């Protein structure tokens, strides 16, 4: 990552050189199409290798988009997607006059904001901390322990959380009990849902998420640190002045991706942890869509909700990427 950052300015020159070389190989007055044809003929292996990915995208991501049109139709399963009549933006009007949907948007944004504020820095801090651990086997053991929850299915994670916060046998309430306090019914109280949900997310993913930052840290040129040591920097200064700036491009890329997923609060974990008593704070757009669309059979309304979700995510990613490219020369594309 750091390396890419350094050569960022040199890149266009290299590309220009390659283009110039290619131009030399081509007869000078060939047309564009001939050139394109020659290009494919020469590089076909690379395109062949790309093909499975393109097919996967077409089949599993683009083809289902055909069905998105029901967001603008009065859809019935008997008439099918194509034959249902168009009704314009009626579903969107319904959505935005629905208090539960608006509440779900609010909840999604609040949970995502908490996730961003607490969940995003967690793996970075963890990676920086691992980087300072010098004892190799201690470091390996600690890393394994924090990676582990990532590999446990959400159902089991939810089970662990529910057990831990149970008012009768849960460890949390047992500890509270030691201080002579009454047990708290955490999972039935709306004000506790968000902290528990966000905390669970961090517990589950921070360790695994730190891998990408550890990889970025490993890519930092070691002589930068040696030079800083000779200059008299301590470990704290090296972390702030070398490590963090060096992995900043990685941090920004991860942040852009994260922002794109703002509307995608990990929906199965919500479903597993929430209950009607906590809908007030726990019901997010995706869970609302799930209940409306799949459980009550309003597929067209659910599609409209999903489309809205995707649209917001799209706008967010575009914005974040543009800002990042402008201010830090780092971007996803």
């Amino acid at each position, binding site marked *: 990552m*750091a390396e890419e*950052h*350094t*050569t*960022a*300015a*040199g890149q266009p020159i290299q590309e220009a050189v390659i283009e110039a070389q290619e131009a030399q190989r081509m007869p000078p007055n060939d047309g564009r199409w001939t050139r394109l044809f020659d290009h494919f003929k020469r590089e076909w292996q690379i395109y062949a290798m790309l093909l499975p990915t393109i097919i996967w995208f077409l089949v599993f991501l683009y083809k289902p988009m055909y069905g998105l049109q029901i967001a603008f139709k009065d859809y019935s399963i008997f008439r099918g997607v194509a034959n249902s009549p168009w009704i314009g933006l009626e579903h969107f009007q319904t959505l935005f006059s629905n208090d539960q949907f608006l509440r779900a948007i609010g909840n999604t944004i609040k949970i995502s904001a908490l996730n961003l504020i607490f969940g995003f820095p967690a793996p970075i801090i963890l990676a920086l901390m691992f980087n300072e651990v010098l004892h190799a086997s201690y470091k390996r053991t600690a890393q394994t322990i924090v990676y582990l929850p990532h590999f446990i299915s959400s159902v089991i994670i939810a089970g662990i959380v529910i057990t831990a916060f149970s008012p009768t046998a849960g460890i949390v309430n047992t500890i509270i009990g030691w201080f002579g306090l009454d047990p708290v019914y955490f999972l039935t109280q709306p004000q506790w849902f968000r902290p528990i949900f966000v905390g669970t997310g961090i517990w589950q993913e921070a360790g695994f998420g730190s891998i990408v930052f550890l990889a970025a840290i490993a890519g930092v*040129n070691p*002589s*930068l640190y*040696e*030079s*800083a*040591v*000779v*200059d*008299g*920097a301590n470990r704290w*200064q090296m972390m702030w*002045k*070398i490590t963090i*700036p*060096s992995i*900043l491009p990685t941090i920004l890329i991860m942040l852009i991706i994260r922002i794109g997923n703002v509307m995608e609060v990990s929906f199965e974990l919500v479903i597993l942890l929430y209950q009607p008593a906590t809908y007030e704070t726990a019901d997010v757009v995706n869970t609302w869509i799930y209940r409306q669309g799949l459980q009550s059979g309003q597929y067209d309304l659910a599609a409209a909700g999903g489309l809205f979700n995707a649209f917001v995510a799209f706008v967010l990613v575009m914005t974040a990427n543009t800002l990042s490219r402008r201010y830090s020369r780092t971007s996803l594309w």
Partner: protein
Amino acid sequence: MSGVNLNGIVKCYGAVEVVHGIDLTVAEKEFVVLVGPSGCGKSTTLRMIAGLEEITAGDLTIHERRVNRIAPKDRDVAMVFQNYALYPHLNVADNMAFGLRIRKMPKDEIKTTIEDVAGILGLTEYLDRRPADLSGGQRQRVAMGRAIVRHPKVFLFDEPLSNLDAKLRTQMRAEIKRLHNRLGVTSVYVTHDQVEAMTLADRIVVMNDGRIEQVGTPMELFNNPANTFVAGFLGSPPMNQIKGTLTQTGAQVGDTEIKISGAMNGQAGRDVIVGIRPEHITLKASKNTSALPIDLDLVEPLGSEALLHGRHDNVEMVFKADTDGDIAHLSGVNAVHINPDLVKLFDAETGRALNFGA
């Protein structure tokens, strides 16, 4: 007063000893170059002086202070790294200021120091640029600037020019020499390039396999190599080394006798290696010279000189001859003439120089 003093310095990585007890004194303001083949322990030695590697045994003093257990930052040394080690996210000025800020130098003082040094190095107009937007030579200068602004007691250089192309390297070499003349800071410079060593050094330290082979001024080493390794390492092309046997007046090489000045002290019959520098020959016989017949197989013109590749008694040899503007006359060469004063002799077994008479 000595600048840097190494006394029996040993370095082990685990059970493997890679530096076997080095003794070396670098005088204050002296420019010492460590040179040797790859893997001989030059960098390791330099990094022990910097404090980046622990010293397994021996004493290291800088300005009369034992620093074995002193942290790098308190040794008052500055190091220039092979890959420059510039911070990619900082501009030139901030790169140079890095060490000063860490040492809490007042802001305005930092500013004037940086401006001074940038002036010396011709970097004034690049102070706002990031390293990625500089040429190799400019980056190299920034790396030097970062060392210079600290006003250290000792400069350490680890192959600082090896990433530059040949022309730039020659240029920067001269610049480093000028800087040293101007600043007069004790310097230890590592390179595997013998030309760099010859041109830059006040004294050269030739290392091989974790040991010092010889220490001396460039001309001392060139004229009187202590052994066949040094003889073969310095000079380009290197000294020709031919097996032979001592006679009363010189050395017998195949069926030819090469006359050598100096008494042989009745050691006739002893096996030796005869060393002849490529440049120490003439094409015309003169008084005292001995002729060495050769089968010429290649002439490489270099301009004013040419390299003659040939064989004598199936031993390959290279000689240098003047071209006088044309190489046609060199193709007929079938013997070279050797001045008896310039021939070196080495013990055939130990490779040590034999100092008969001369």
